């Protein structure tokens, strides 16, 4: 078995240099693209995610190795296996990511990445501490059953993550047409991070945007509808622990207070679902907007 490097760890120095370069660009073009406290929160969440990844990664490896013993093919580490695994892992990533937005339990883990109202390279590093508990890794398990070695899958998954770093920027407008047609780009991913109704729950791709086109979740960024970033109900707080756990706490509160027949709905239904229709899902927000509204955002109405 070859000793494959961890692409994410290797890329950390480049991440730091590129964040610094983007800060300088922001200083010259638009100072509002960065905020020191937001950057600190994002980077601290990223570091915490790395630590939690070390703690829970062992569990994932145990599960992967257990499944790998039932593999259908002995693929090994041949060159074409890396390419094929990269493509299939990216397909799996698409569904992991889509589940992360459409199932509240998984969203509770993933929401952290979307909770910044800024969109810059530091946002890319704003990652979850509870990814393992979101359980979406289950979608990747068939790769081991097919016969891709767990170390190989971890390697291509790392490359995938490193690729996704550079697309978290407003500094780059649009890439050449052929790139925009095939790959996930800053423009496509700005759409994904936007809360504008037309953009909500679109462009789940990791590397290849073709998955969104194939499965009907692709939307182009429009110059006349500039993305507004964050989540439908923005946190309004830089509290690190709150950013990492707020949706889990929200689920716990909802499950506790919901009638018995509706409790599980707050776990497996889409974010924004409620048993009494008092909240709005992204589908409902978009429908309301398509029906004539021109606005977007926080749907919660509360009396203090």
């Amino acid at each position, binding site marked *: 078995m070859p000793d494959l490097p*961890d692409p994410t*760890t290797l890329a*950390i120095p480049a991440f*730091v240099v590129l*964040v*610094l370069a983007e*800060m*300088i660009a*922001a*200083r010259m073009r638009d*100072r*509002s*693209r*960065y*905020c*020191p*406290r*937001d*950057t*600190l929160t994002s*980077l*601290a969440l*990223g*570091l915490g995610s*790395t*630590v939690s990844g*070390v703690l829970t990664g062992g569990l994932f490896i145990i599960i992967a190795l257990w499944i790998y013993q039932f593999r259908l093919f002995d693929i090994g580490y041949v060159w074409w296996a890396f390419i094929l695994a990269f493509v299939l892992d990216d397909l799996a990533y698409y569904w992991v990511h889509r589940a992360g937005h459409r199932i509240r339990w998984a969203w509770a883990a993933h929401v952290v990445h979307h909770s910044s*109202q*800024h969109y810059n390279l*530091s946002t890319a590093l704003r990652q979850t501490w509870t990814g393992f508990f979101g359980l979406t890794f289950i979608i990747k398990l068939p790769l081991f059953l097919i016969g891709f070695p767990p170390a190989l899958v971890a390697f291509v998954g790392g490359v995938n993550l490193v690729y996704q770093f550079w697309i978290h920027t407003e500094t780059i407008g649009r890439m050449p047409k052929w790139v925009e047609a095939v790959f996930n780009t800053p423009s496509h991913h700005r759409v994904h991070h936007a*809360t504008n*109704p037309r953009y909500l729950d679109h462009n789940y791709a990791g590397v290849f945007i073709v998955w969104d086109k194939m499965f009907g979740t692709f939307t182009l960024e429009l110059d006349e509808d500039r993305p*507004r*970033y*964050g989540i439908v109900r*923005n*946190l*309004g*707080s*830089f*509290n690190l622990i*709150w950013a990492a756990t*707020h949706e889990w706490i929200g689920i716990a509160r909802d499950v506790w207070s919901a009638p018995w027949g509706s409790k599980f709905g707050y776990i497996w239904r889409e974010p924004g679902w409620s048993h009494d229709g008092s909240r*709005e899902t992204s589908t409902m*927000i978009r429908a*309301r*907007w398509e029906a004539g*509204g*021109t*606005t*977007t*955002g*926080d*749907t*919660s*109405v*509360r*009396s*203090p």
Partner: protein
Amino acid sequence: MNWEQLAGSLAAILVLAWIARLMKLGESRISDPARACELAEDMLVGFEAKRAIVSEDGGAAIVAGNGTIALLKRHGAQVAVRRLIPPLRVREAIEGVAIDTGERLFGAVTLTGVLVEDVRGLEIGVGSHLRAVPN
């Protein structure tokens, strides 16, 4: 990741945040009532802004809408919003008024240079009345 990498990453994080501060990144303000109305309409589904009051320091605003009030606060270089149903919980603060959102982590929002009467007047336009909370 080993301990050296962890310590290095932590140091890099602090240095980057410090540099962002040195560069004075993230400075912004809600410039005027028209901008506050625009932000509220952009961020709240179906919100139709009628009138706004902006904090003297540009750090917050309230916007009267169709039956609800948008409470805006500067959050870093961006603006976070909550839609509130009147009557609002308002109390006098040394520098202006503080409006309670009912959320501990979002916190009460202070509008400097604004009087309780100003908020009360804006709330009347929404079709409800104010409930003041003692300090």
